[in-house]
């Protein structure tokens, strides 16, 4: 089993699970409390298990142009782009964030469960180009600090004015004397940063543990359980549950990541040929009672099989069961009444827009800044 630099803290304080081959915290004290800490104040997550891969060299911009459906090479240095890695038939290999460092340097942050598969794909497409692929996952640490007070929690550890870093951009700086990349991104729907710490991994955890310890005075340690309920409430898909190689970006409701102006890239011809509406589309579903789980059937009012739940949970904010599912476009209107079959009992549910929570009260767009 692999361990992150923060394993020593997790072992003493968390319930551990095997996640993509890593010993990771599922929760420290209570998933609900950790979830609400992020919605109302600040939480911190060890996300070091995610893959971090540098693409370096004269052809690095050519590489990202060829690999991804989004406009990345023409962005300014310091931009972060959420994008997809596609097969030739536009099936999704992975979803990821690409950090543009310079025209000749990009950093890809990929899912832990897809690490080896992605590296194979990346190396295959890099083989004809003048680029080096440098996997720095094990020599770095990644910590997400998330929530309306995330900046307050992180600011004492750095001289970089964090409020000046725009959403989906990053800066290189120092955190507690450790070289770091600070990206204003996250997977919770909230404001916050994902911090990549250089030169500290499981082999030399001292700097990472010191930073985690200092952050702990203002942010609550949160496990992967809360990370999952937070991303679900925010309507963010999880690879392996809501996305896989049989889903394409249109079905996944990720059309917005596809550039309207880009030329050829892996999967482009397949996407261009797709003029018909998709067969199915990813939607949110809310239940009045009961908790939807992965694999549960979704029916329309007359009992027609619409599809099945790809991920579901109990929403700590709404105090209701929420889910993602793929349904036919003619049953995908927000407000549409459907049913979710929970252990043989069909329960009333309705199609709901993402995010599930009220964006004026929760999430990074919130206008009501009063924290509880």
């Amino acid at each position: 089993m692999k361990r992150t630099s923060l394993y020593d803290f997790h072992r003493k304080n968390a319930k551990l699970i095997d996640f993509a081959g890593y010993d990771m915290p599922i929760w420290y004290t209570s998933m609900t409390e950790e979830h609400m800490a992020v919605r109302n104040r600040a939480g911190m997550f060890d996300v070091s298990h995610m893959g971090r891969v540098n693409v370096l060299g004269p052809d690095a911009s050519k590489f990202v142009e060829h690999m991804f459906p989004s406009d990345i090479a023409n962005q300014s240095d310091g931009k972060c782009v959420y994008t997809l890695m596609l097969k030739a038939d536009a099936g999704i290999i992975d979803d990821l964030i690409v950090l543009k460092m310079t025209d000749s340097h990009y950093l890809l942050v990929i899912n832990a469960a897809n690490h080896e598969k992605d590296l194979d794909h990346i190396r295959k497409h890099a083989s004809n180009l003048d680029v080096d692929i440098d996997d720095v996952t094990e020599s770095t640490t990644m910590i997400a600090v998330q929530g309306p007070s995330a900046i307050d929690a992180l600011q004492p550890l750095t001289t970089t004015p964090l409020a000046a870093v725009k959403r989906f951009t990053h800066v290189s700086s120092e955190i507690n004397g450790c070289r770091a990349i600070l990206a204003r991104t996250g997977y919770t729907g909230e404001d916050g940063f994902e911090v990549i710490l250089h030169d500290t991994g499981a082999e030399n955890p001292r700097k990472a543990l010191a930073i985690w310890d200092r952050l702990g005075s203002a942010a609550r340690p949160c496990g992967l359980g809360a990370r999952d309920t937070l991303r679900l409430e925010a309507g963010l898909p999880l690879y392996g549950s809501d996305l896989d190689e049989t889903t394409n970006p249109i079905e996944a409701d990720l059309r917005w990541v596809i550039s309207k102006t880009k030329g050829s890239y892996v999967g482009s011809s397949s996407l261009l040929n797709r003029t018909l509406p998709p067969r199915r589309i990813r939607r949110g579903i809310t239940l009045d009672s009961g908790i939807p789980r992965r694999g549960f059937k979704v029916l329309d009012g007359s009992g027609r099989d619409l599809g099945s739940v790809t991920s579901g949970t109990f929403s700590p904010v709404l105090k209701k069961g929420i889910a993602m599912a793929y349904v036919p476009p003619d049953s995908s209107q927000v407000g549409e009444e459907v049913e979710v079959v929970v252990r043989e009992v069909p329960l009333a549910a309705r199609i709901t827009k993402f995010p599930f929570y009220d964006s004026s009260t929760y999430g990074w767009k919130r206008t009501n800044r009063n924290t509880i």
Partner: protein
Amino acid sequence: MKITGNTAKIGVTDYAAKTLNDVVYLTLPPAGQEVKQFDSFGTVESIKAVSELYSPFTGTMTRSNPELANHPELVNISPYESGWIIEVSLKRLDEEKKNLLTPAQYKELVKSLAQEHH
């Protein structure tokens, strides 16, 4: 569980409550339902998982804890007191009692389960 005369208030153990983490939902039968020793009578759900609830005795369910609909977290906070789940009118208390673990035996079981996980 807590037995008063011929009635038992049934819930989960402290170990089960801790292992489940936050209980957020329960599915329970209506009053009047017969329950059988070691048979499932409902489910308890945490954020991550669904678990069956097993009855330690045979009998007729007289009521479920009315507080749990709005406060399922009582199962975590107070599994032996305010977090009780159903009340059962017992049929075969004396003979069925012999089939159950004593608190000391349960403690041993939990200890061995905990060791398996380390």
